[in-house]
């Protein structure tokens, strides 16, 4: 073992070990995250199996096109994130900074679109309990309307949790952006880029599932 590189923490033997530990740590965290979303998704699955038609009715109130566009936006951000890791690996600092910046931009775009969707749902009285127009479903009976309400609870909780993860991701990306502009990352050491990249892709995957589960219910 030669001299200890600056980025090497005192308790590791090599950068290799340190990098392996960090990525494993993130993967393990993501496995844990699967169960975090898994808890709500299980509840979702149970109620969808019980009240399928009400969920379909609720889903129809959402704007499929907007959801699809947002999916594309998020996929684009994943692309730029993957490229960022590539450029970090190849030591192309400017490209790295650019890609991180683009990823952030797509992230903002996604959240902005989501925000307008929320606003529209508010205008259309689709906010459970506070502004919810049960009369829309009065032909199907009172209970039916409440179950649609339940669908919207899921909609807001699931997309809300996803949005919280996006905000955390934006914070992490900002950190990457600053450090990469400062030139902290070298081909030998870019662990944070890779690890935060993993997180970002995971948040993307969550959305990949949320999109059909919320926007595309047919019965």
């Amino acid at each position: 073992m030669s001299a200890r590189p600056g980025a090497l923490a005192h308790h590791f033997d090599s950068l290799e070990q340190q990098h392996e530990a960090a990525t494993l740590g993130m993967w393990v965290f993501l496995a844990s995250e699967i169960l975090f979303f898994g808890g709500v998704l299980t509840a979702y699955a149970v109620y969808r199996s019980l009240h399928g038609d009400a969920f379909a009715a609720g889903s129809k109130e959402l704007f499929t096109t907007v959801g699809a566009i947002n999916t594309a936006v998020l996929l684009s951000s994943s692309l730029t994130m993957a490229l960022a890791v590539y450029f970090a690996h190849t030591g192309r600092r400017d490209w790295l900074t650019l890609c991180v910046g683009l990823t952030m931009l797509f992230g903002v775009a996604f959240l902005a679109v989501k925000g307008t969707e929320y606003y529209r749902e508010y205008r259309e009285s689709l906010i459970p309990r506070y502004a919810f127009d049960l009369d829309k479903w009065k032909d199907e009976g009172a209970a039916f309307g409440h179950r649609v309400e339940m669908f919207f609870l899921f909609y807001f909780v699931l997309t809300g949790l996803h949005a919280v993860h996006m905000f955390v991701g934006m914070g992490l990306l900002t950190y990457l952006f600053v450090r990469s502009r400062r030139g902290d990352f070298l081909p030998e050491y870019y662990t944070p880029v890779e690890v935060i990249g993993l997180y970002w892709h995971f948040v993307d995957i969550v959305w990949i599932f949320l999109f059909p589960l919320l926007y595309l219910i047919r019965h």
Partner: protein
Amino acid sequence: MTRLAVRPPTYFRVYAALLFLTFSTAAVAYLPLGGWHTVAAVGIAAVKAILVLLFFMHLLQSTRLTWLVIAAGLFWLGILLALTFADYLTRGWLSY
């Protein structure tokens, strides 16, 4: 350091595939599939997730341990779903 065998052209190809799948999943929702919409939608989503995992997240180049970690997460989600539904799907089997 992990060796990054994936190069940008691959990323772009994967990206194109993902966009295409997004489009098709939306399109499939309007096809008359009977009760199979959910299966189709979740199936396509799973394919997309696998693409992201394998290429964007470099699972292809990762150690067996990494695969194991993901498998564990999914397996445990499977437990949660399976045993919860063991209750819900058998309710009302016993009539009285």
